């Protein structure tokens, strides 16, 4: 039949079909469309819900202990004796110092190497070698933290004992070295993005003036990309503070203020991981570990917020 219809008829029937289609769509399809849009919106908000959920549920478990606690003492006392029968003490000062010292030592090692590698990837490599190096760095970022901890325990520890003539190989230096290696990949990838964002005209201008590559990097690129590089460092710091398994296995795990970089220390994260299994739900010890969780949440929140604001600032420019 269709072979007989004229052009005019086709046009008329197709426009009629279109209106019919629209009317049909009005019911079933539009309902489906609505439903899927609601689902998409819910999923979109899920990140907010989860962040609040994390804060709520961790805080809920730890909150009852806040009433019994002197916050100043909790934060600044270095006496952490949660398992003592008669004189249980909950001071996380030494743990905070442990986290800060391991993280800062890690950054002292990681920042020059991470940013140096970012400069190398972005400015000195091209084509194949750049791709290869980026793939290798991406793979390094994928190594699980428990494997890092295992490496610290079995490979690094004897090397440190031999090289530095110290009695214990699992110590602050070991943990910091692992954290440095773990946070370098993220610094390289974010740092490389920051360097890529520097306009090529800057490079051309510097080279036209007769600058060497060395001068180009120091005098032009690093100052121009300094915000992005700062964000890269901050994300590395965030990763190092939150890292658990590697520091749990490789820092030696003794609660005290370290006097040298070869002293064993203990971090906030490692304390939660090591002790939570031994506590009973609702005990003071249990609740104090959740308060440490809130403290960690707050610290990393601030660090990530700062990094994010810096990155946003660059994009606006």
């Amino acid at each position, binding site marked *: 039949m269709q072979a007989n219809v004229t052009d005019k008829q086709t046009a008329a029937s197709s426009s009629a079909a279109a209106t019919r289609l629209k009317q049909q769509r009005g019911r079933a399809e539009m309902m489906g469309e609505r439903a899927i849009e609601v689902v998409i919106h819910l999923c*979109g*908000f899920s990140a907010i819900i989860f962040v609040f959920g994390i804060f709520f*549920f961790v805080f809920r478990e730890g909150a009852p202990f806040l009433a019994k606690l002197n916050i100043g003492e909790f934060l600044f006392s270095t006496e952490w004796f949660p398992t003592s029968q008669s004189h249980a003490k909950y001071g996380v000062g030494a743990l905070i110092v442990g986290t800060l010292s391991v993280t800062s030592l890690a950054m002292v090692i990681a920042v020059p190497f991470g940013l140096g590698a970012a400069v190398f990837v972005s400015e*000195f490599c091209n084509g194949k070698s750049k791709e290869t190096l980026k793939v290798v760095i991406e793979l390094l970022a994928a190594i699980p933290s428990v*494997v890092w901890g295992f490496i610290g325990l079995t490979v690094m520890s004897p090397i440190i004992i031999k090289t530095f003539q110290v009695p214990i190989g699992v110590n602050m230096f070991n943990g910091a070295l692992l954290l440095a290696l773990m946070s370098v990949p993220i610094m390289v990838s974010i740092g490389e993005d920051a360097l890529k964002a520097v306009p090529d005209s800057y490079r051309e201008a510097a080279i036209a003036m007769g600058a060497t590559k*060395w001068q180009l990097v120091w005098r032009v690129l690093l100052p121009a990309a300094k915000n992005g590089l700062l964000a890269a460092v901050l994300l590395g710091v965030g990763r190092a503070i939150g890292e658990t398994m590697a520091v749990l296995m490789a820092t030696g795990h003794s609660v005290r203020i370290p006097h040298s970089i070869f002293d064993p220390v203990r971090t906030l994260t490692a304390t939660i991981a090591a002790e939570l299994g031994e506590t009973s739900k609702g005990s003071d010890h249990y609740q104090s570990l959740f308060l440490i969780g809130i403290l960690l949440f707050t610290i990393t929140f601030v660090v990530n917020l700062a990094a994010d604001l810096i990155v946003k600032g660059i994009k606006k420019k």
Partner: protein
Amino acid sequence: MAQAHFTATPFTRKKRRTEIIAKCFFGGMAAAMVIPLVLIVGYVVVQGAPSLSWEFLTTNPRLGGIRGGIWSALVGTIYIVTISLCVSAPIGVLSAVYLNEYAKDNWFTRIVNLAVVNLAGVPSIVHGLFGLGAFVYAAGMGKSILSASLTLSIMTLPVIIASTKEALSAVPVSFREACWNVGATRWQTIWRIVLPNSISGILTGVILQVSRTAGETAPIMLTGVATFKAIESTGLFLYNPVKDQCMALSMHLYYIATQANNAAPSLPYAIATVLLGAVLVVNATAIGVRAYLRSRKKW
């Protein structure tokens, strides 16, 4: 050749020398972090490889885990990865669709983006505390595979959101406009045009999520992983995801390396090799898929 007549002045020679020094300096920085790592990973694999065998993978651990194979740990990791993938992949992809296709550029969207960034930055052990408080106790799931998987799925959500979002925003706006102009609805456009064209990025995100989930230890340690458990060697449901705790490769490595006495010395190396091998193969697949699909891209 014009260059043949060009004689290098001391100045240009000096300049060339600084150039080379600069390259070596920064190259050394990159090498200093890459080479030792490759050596260390190589060392672990060399130590672990002799005890790897099909039998090691498919027999249950014995004597509290210090002898025998890693069957129940391997299966446990696969269960956790599969379940958390089923939860986080759809939520993550739809969340990225919202951020890229629906969200307006206003303060609320900025907060959503900030929440994604912060979700990625929350320490893994805090995710573990959350899973313990929310799923194990508040939701009454107890320590189980389900609790552990849900905890990990929330933790790895940002990985999928980030790579999907990037892929969606790479699809040209003209594709969408063409689709709207023939009368397609918003969702039809997304389902038929936008998602198929960004499949490479989505796939990469999903694969990276798998590798991240497989290696994670701290959160599942608190929410549902046992240090020792033997299971049957064949069958479809080796664990009951709702009731059982399971073993996991990452946790098994931690336990054998730090807590267990008298374990065979090569055992932790062998577990580490399996874990490393799995994670690196999965990641290499992601990189390969990305490269393949990118090479087929038509615009």
